[in-house]
């Protein structure tokens, strides 16, 4: 699906009246494999998959330039995402380059992490003064329920990655969307966190770390028809600096974008490639902006 026909992007205006101010570059995201993924999750917000990715992988020069420019701009953290980042042949060298200048995080489905990759990741983490975070996605503590969303075998492979990383002293962050399990409980011991925590402890993870992400009704979940957008009334009195687009930018095919959720969409594009030029207020034009506004969603680790 080419980016210019993605549902939800039709409302782009040349100068959108609602914007989030840019405060500082807390995080650089690099969409290193575009929307190329070896899984086809039913809820994927950017419709990543194995065939004909609408957003292509980045070349090494683009990635290293982005890291250099971000360092010059005083970036605090660097994230790699996709698609599945470990499909990129240069993923480990990219992590090494990032860890030379800042803490780095890679978001992965875990399926490509076997012993050799886990060893390399552990070596990279040990060699850097900065933290390396590996965020492994699962969507349910129940294997069958998880695999209905993420594909057959996805749970076992993700848990293998979590085990291999844990055995090497890395502390993976388990990332789960609210697509299958719902948080919903007032009792902190019964909600989604607690269930994930219990499952991880049962699998030998002594220090469970969990990140929960709301569901974005876009990509494969895009419903027919138009979804509500932010309005000036909604933003009255709302602190826009709490939105992640006020402190993050994403380098992806075609340029620099406002946030990881909207990477690749023309309406979220802020420059053709210069990070510095993209540090401007970003348009709050998409219905996904409503999700961030309502949930306080932030893609960063914590």
């Amino acid at each position, binding site marked *: 699906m080419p980016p210019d026909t993605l549902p939800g992007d039709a409302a782009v205006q040349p100068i959108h009246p609602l914007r989030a101010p840019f405060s500082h570059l807390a995080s650089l995201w690099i969409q290193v494999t575009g929307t190329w993924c070896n899984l086809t999750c039913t809820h994927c917000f950017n419709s990543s998959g194995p065939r004909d990715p609408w957003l292509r992988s980045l070349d090494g020069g683009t990635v290293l330039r982005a890291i250099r420019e971000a360092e010059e701009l*005083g970036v605090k953290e660097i994230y790699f995402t996709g698609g599945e980042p470990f499909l990129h042949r240069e993923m480990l060298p990219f992590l090494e380059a990032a860890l030379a*200048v800042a803490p780095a995080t890679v978001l992965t489905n875990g399926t490509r992490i076997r012993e050799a990759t886990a060893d390399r990741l552990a070596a990279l983490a040990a060699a850097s003064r900065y*933290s390396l975070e590996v965020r492994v996605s699962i969507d349910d503590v129940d294997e069958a329920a998880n695999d209905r969303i993420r594909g057959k075998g996805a749970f076992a492979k993700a848990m293998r990655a979590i085990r291999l990383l844990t055995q090497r002293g890395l502390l993976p962050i388990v990332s789960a969307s609210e697509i299958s399990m719902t948080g919903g409980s007032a009792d*902190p011991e019964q909600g989604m*966190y607690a269930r994930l925590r219990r499952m991880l402890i049962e699998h030998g993870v002594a220090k469970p770390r969990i990140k929960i992400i709301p569901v974005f009704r876009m990509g494969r979940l895009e419903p027919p028809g138009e979804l509500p957008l932010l309005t000036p009334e909604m933003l009255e009195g709302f602190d826009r600096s709490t939105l992640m687009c006020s402190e993050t930018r994403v380098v992806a095919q075609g340029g620099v974008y406002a946030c990881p959720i909207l990477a690749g969409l023309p309406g979220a594009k802020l420059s053709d490639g210069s990070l510095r030029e993209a540090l401007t207020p970003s348009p709050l034009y998409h219905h996904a902006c409503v999700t961030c506004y309502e949930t306080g969603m932030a893609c960063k680790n914590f």
Partner: protein
Amino acid sequence: MRIWSSPTPYERVALFGGIYSNHLALAAALTDAADRGAEALFCLGDLGAFGPHPDKVFPLLEKTGAIVMQGNYDASLASGRDDCQCGYTDPRDNHFARLSYQYTFRNTSAANKAWLGTLPGALRFRVGRQFVHCCHGSPRLINEFLWESTTPDALLRRFLDQTAADVLCCTHTGITWERRLPDGRMAVNVGAIGRPENDGNTHVWYALLTAGREVGVEFIPVPYDHEALAAEKEGEGIPGEFVETIRTGWWTTCLESLPAKERARGRF
């Protein structure tokens, strides 16, 4: 933001943050710093949280003439907010953060809350010829965590440029670290005087800065009667998780914000 500054340079100063109502550790640190010849005492904020009888720390600070700036907890208490601005997402962390804040809010007098509202947002002074800028979280955000493993050199250079300082001091994370950059400038996280730093030791820490060609930094461990504090917490009905940290030196709550390297060093 109001900035407190001193026109007179110091030879030796003590800096501490995160008192968290630990009046026993505070008293021990203040005495220790005086014994070591500190000419001034700087508190980088967060007087309350976790601990018993929050009003007990105020007279100690007043008596010793400590210069105090505002932390996120102080800002919340002063403005009557219903949360500590700690920003946790894990319901377990939020549960404990809420209990801690509600207890502190209930037990801090109106006069002390009002005083917290008058505190400056940054401190500036010289140690010898070097300019020191003190913030609570970071120079740009009161509740930003500057952990050792998540604070890039380039970001520190930027902060030092923006604040026109040779030494940047902060707290908020509760774990000490220092880093000297190749150009001689440096950053110091002074740690917290209110709870041990998640290494299995029960003592707490403050920092001494001493004038020299480059500012000398020394982290001072402060043993104190932690059993008495633990008992006082229990007497106030403060959750056992907080008491356990005081008795064991391991953090049991609010672990979410710890990056991988720092989390790996703790027990939980």
